[in-house]
C-alpha cells in the first residue's frame, strides 16, 4: 500500500503537460515559454481550465457555420427521410434494422452476410481520413468532427446566455447567487435539451422514426431505447458542455495518429514567426519599426481559439486547425493596415521558403503531391470495387445441408431416400417463386418437401419464398431402386424476369457407401 502521505505530496510531472511546441520540429524560434508546471504542479491530475473563446467573424468562421449546419442537419433530418421500397420493406431512407438484421441506405440494402460492404465503407472512411489529412491536414478535427460541431454549438449557447469571453469569465468567477443560479439553470437546460435531441435522434436510425418517436413519448418504447437516449444525453451533456477541448487533447486518439501522418508538406495553421517576431505593441513598434515584427501581441488569436491554445507557440496537439485564429489575426492586420496572413494555412516547407525570402506560395499548391493522388486512387478504387460488387450481386442464394443422421434411408421398394435442409434466400422486396431442381441425378429421381407430399413428388419443386427473407425447406430426394448416385447439385432458379440462379453441390448417400 502506498503511504497516504505520498498522495498529498506534490510531485513534479514527468513531462511538461501543455508544451507541445516542437512536437514535430516546429519552425518557431519563439520557443515555448518555460513550463510553469514545475515542482508546484501536481502529477496526479491537471484541473481543466474552461476556455471562453471570443466571438469572431470571417471566412473560416462562416465556413465552420456552414459545415456545422450541414452536419447537424444530416444528423437530425436523415432518420425522417422516407424512401419507397414497396409493401414488404420499411420506407425509411436510412435504417439500421438490428432486429431483422438489415441495413437500408436509400436504394442499397445490406444483409448480414454482406457485411463486407460495411467493412469496405469503414476502410474507405479510414482511407478518406488519410486522404483528407494529406490534403488539408486536420480539417476533420477543425470542422466536421462531432466533438467539434457539438462543442461549437454549446459554445454558442454559452455566448447566448452569458455574453462573450470576458463576461463569461467574470460569471465563472462570480460567487453563486440567485442571478448566477438562474443563468446557469437556463443555460444547462438548453444543454440538456440539445443533448436530449442528440440522443433522441440516434435511436431513430434503428427503428421506424415516426413510430418510435410516438412510442417514445407515450412511454411505450423499448427500455433499450430509453437507456440509449439516457446514455447519449449524458455523454453529449458532459462531453459537449464541459469536457470540450479536453476530449481532443486528452481522450481522442486521432491527434496522436495525426502527429504520425503530418509532415513538412502538410497544410497546417501556422504563425509566420519570421514576419511576426519580435512581438510588440503598436506603440513600441512605432518607436522602433526595425526591431519589431508584424505581431502586435494583441492575443486575439488566443482569445478566439476554441481549444485555448496559443498558435504562436507552433504546431501542437491542441490545434484542431479550425482557422478561427486566422480570421482574428486577419481582422487585426486589416485594422492596423498590414497585409493579411500572419497566421495562415501553410505547410512547413512553404514557411521555410517564405522565411528564406521566397515569394508566398498559395496554400492550394500544397495539394499537388503524389501522396494525395495515391490515397485518392486507392480510395476511388475501393469505392468502384464496392459499387461493382453491389451492382452485380445476385438477390438469390441457396445453401444445402445434407442430413447426416441417418445419411440415407432405404425404403420398402428398395428406393433410397436422402434428406436435405435447403436455405433459399430471396433478397428482393417482393415474394418470389423459385424452382429447385436437381442436376446430375439418374432419371426417375424425384423430390418432395414437407409441404408437398410423396404423391406429388417430381423432379423439381417450385417453392414460394417470402419477400426479403430466407426460407428453410426440408427436401427429400428419392432415387429409384437399382440406380446409384454419389453426388449432384441443387439448382435454384427464380421464376421471374431476372431468372437468377444459384447452384450448390452436395452428396447423395447410398447403402454401403457410408
Amino acid at each position, binding site marked *: 500500500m*502506498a503511504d497516504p502521505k*505520498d*498522495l498529498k*505530496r506534490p*510531485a*513534479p510531472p*514527468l513531462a511538461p503537460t501543455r508544451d507541445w511546441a516542437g512536437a514535430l520540429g516546429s519552425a518557431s524560434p519563439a520557443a515555448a515559454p518555460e513550463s510553469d508546471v514545475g*515542482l508546484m504542479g501536481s*502529477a*496526479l*491530475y491537471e484541473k481543466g481550465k474552461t476556455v471562453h473563446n471570443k466571438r469572431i467573424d470571417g471566412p473560416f468562421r462562416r465556413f465552420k457555420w456552414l459545415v456545422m449546419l450541414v452536419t447537424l442537419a444530416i444528423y437530425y433530418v436523415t432518420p425522417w427521410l422516407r424512401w419507397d421500397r414497396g409493401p414488404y420493406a420499411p420506407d425509411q431512407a436510412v435504417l439500421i434494422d438490428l432486429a431483422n438484421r438489415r441495413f437500408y441506405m436509400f436504394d442499397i440494402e445490406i444483409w448480414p452476410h454482406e457485411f463486407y460492404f460495411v467493412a469496405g465503407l469503414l476502410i474507405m472512411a479510414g482511407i478518406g481520413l488519410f486522404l483528407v489529412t494529406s490534403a488539408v491536414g486536420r480539417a476533420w478535427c477543425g470542422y466536421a468532427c462531432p466533438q467539434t460541431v457539438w462543442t461549437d454549438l454549446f459554445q454558442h449557447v454559452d455566448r447566448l446566455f452569458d455574453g462573450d469571453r470576458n463576461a463569461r469569465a467574470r460569471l465563472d468567477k462570480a460567487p453563486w447567487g440567485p442571478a448566477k443560479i438562474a443563468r446557469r439553470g437556463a443555460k444547462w437546460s438548453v444543454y440538456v435539451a440539445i443533448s436530449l435531441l442528440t440522443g433522441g435522434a440516434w435511436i431513430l436510425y434503428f427503428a421506424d422514426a415516426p413510430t418510435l418517436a410516438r412510442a417514445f413519448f407515450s412511454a411505450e418504447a423499448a427500455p433499450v431505447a430509453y437507456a440509449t437516449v439516457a446514455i447519449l444525453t449524458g455523454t453529449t451533456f458532459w462531453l459537449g458542455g464541459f469536457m470540450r477541448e479536453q476530449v481532443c487533447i486528452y481522450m481522442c486518439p486521432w491527434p496522436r495518429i495525426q502527429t504520425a501522418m503530418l509532415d513538412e508538406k502538410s497544410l497546417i495553421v501556422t504563425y509566420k514567426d519570421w514576419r511576426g517576431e519580435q512581438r510588440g505593441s503598436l506603440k513600441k513598434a512605432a518607436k522602433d519599426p526595425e526591431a519589431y515584427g508584424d505581431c502586435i501581441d494583441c492575443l486575439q488569436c488566443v482569445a478566439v481559439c476554441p481549444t485555448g491554445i496559443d498558435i504562436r507557440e507552433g504546431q501542437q496537439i491542441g490545434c484542431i486547425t479550425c482557422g478561427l485564429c486566422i480570421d482574428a489575426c486577419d481582422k487585426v492586420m486589416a485594422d492596423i493596415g498590414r497585409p493579411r496572413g500572419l497566421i495562415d494555412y501553410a505547410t512547413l516547407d512553404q514557411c521555410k521558403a517564405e522565411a528564406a525570402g521566397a515569394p508566398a506560395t498559395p496554400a492550394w499548391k500544397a495539394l499537388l503531391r503524389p501522396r494525395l493522388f495515391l490515397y485518392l486512387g486507392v480510395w476511388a478504387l475501393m469505392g468502384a470495387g464496392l459499387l461493382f460488387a453491389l451492382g452485380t450481386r445476385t438477390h438469390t442464394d441457396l445453401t444445402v445441408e445434407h*442430413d*447426416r*443422421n*441417418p445419411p440415407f*434411408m*432405404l*425404403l*420398402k*421398394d*428398395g428406393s433410397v*431416400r436422402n*434428406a436435405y435442409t435447403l436455405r433459399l434466400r430471396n433478397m428482393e422486396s417482393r415474394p418470389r417463386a423459385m424452382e429447385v431442381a436437381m442436376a446430375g441425378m439418374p432419371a426417375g429421381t424425384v423430390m418432395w418437401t*414437407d*409441404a408437398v*407430399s410423396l404423391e406429388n413428388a417430381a423432379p423439381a419443386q417450385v417453392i414460394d419464398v417470402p419477400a426479403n427473407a430466407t426460407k428453410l425447406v426440408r427436401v*427429400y430426394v428419392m432415387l429409384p*431402386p437399382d440406380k446409384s448416385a454419389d453426388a449432384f447439385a441443387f439448382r435454384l432458379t427464380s421464376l421471374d424476369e431476372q431468372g437468377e440462379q444459384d447452384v450448390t453441390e452436395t452428396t447423395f448417400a447410398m447403402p454401403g457407401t457410408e
Partner: protein
Amino acid sequence: MVNRRIDEPTGTETVGHEWDGIEELNTPLPRWWLYTFYACIVFSAVYVVLYPAWPLIDKATAGTLGWSSRGDLAKEMSAANMARQGVFQQIAATDIEKLPGSPDLMQAAISGGAAAFKVNCVQCHGAGAAGYQEFGYPNLNDDDWIWGGTLTDIEYTLQHGIRWDAAEQTRVNYMPAFEGVFDKAQVSAVTGHVLSLSGKAQPNPAGAQLFSENCAACHGPAGGGSPELGAPALNDAIWLYGGTAAAVTKQILAPRHGVMPAWSGRLDPVTIKMLAAYVHSRGGGQKAAPAQIETDVAQTPDKAKTDG
C-alpha cells in the same frame, strides 16, 4: 534501510530501496484510481450482504436478497413454460389427425416432439431416429410400419407401448417359434420363399406351400404383413432383424420380440402427441385413409384382439 531520496533527473521521490544499484521511482496512483478502488471496496461490502458470498460447509451464505442462480433458472423455465402454454393448449384441443391441417401448430408440435425425442427416445431409436437393426430397434424414418404409420397409429403405440405388460391396451403379438415344428429342409424352404417375396431368392413351391399353411394367416398370402396384427411385411427391402438367409432362419426358429414402454402416465398427452407428430414427420409418415379418421379407438387393435 529505507532511504527515500529525490531522483535528480525526474524530480520524483524513490521508494527507498535499492537492488544492485537499481532504484524504483515512487509514482503515486492517480486520485481517480484511488477513489475507484475505495468505491470497489464499498461495493464488495454491500455485495457480501446482499448476495451469496461466503462458502460454508455445504452451502454458502444466502444473502439478504435471497437471490440464487437456480432460482433464476427456475424463474426462466416457468416463464418459458408459461409462454408455451397457449400452443400446448391448442395442441391438446386438436385431434391428432387434424394437426397437419394447421401448419403452424404442426410445426410447433414437430419442434416440441424433436426436443422430447432427444430426452426420451434416442436411447433405443438413435439420435437420427434410424434405430439399431442389431438390437431390433425399428427405424422410424422409413416408410415401413409394423403397427401402422398414421399419426393416430403412432400416437397409440407411444401411449400404450408394445408388449408392455403394465399397460392394459398395449400392442401385443407373438410369433410362434418353429424350432422343432419344421425340419431342416422345411426351414430352408420357408426361408427361401420369404426371401423370394422381395426378389432375393428363387421361388420354391415347397416353401410357398409351408408359408401359406403356417405364415400367411398373419403375414398375408403375399407376405404384405398386417399393421392391425403387427405382422411385419416380408416382401419389402426393410428387415427389422436383418434380411440375410441366416437372420430370417433365426427369426423363424426362435423369433425375437421387441418391447417398447408405454408412455401414457410417464409423459403428458401433449408431449406424446408432439412426439407422434415428430416421428410422423421424419419422412415415412402415412396419411390416414379418409375412412380411418372416423375409426373408433375401439377398433384399433388392442390386447384383447391380438392376444391369443
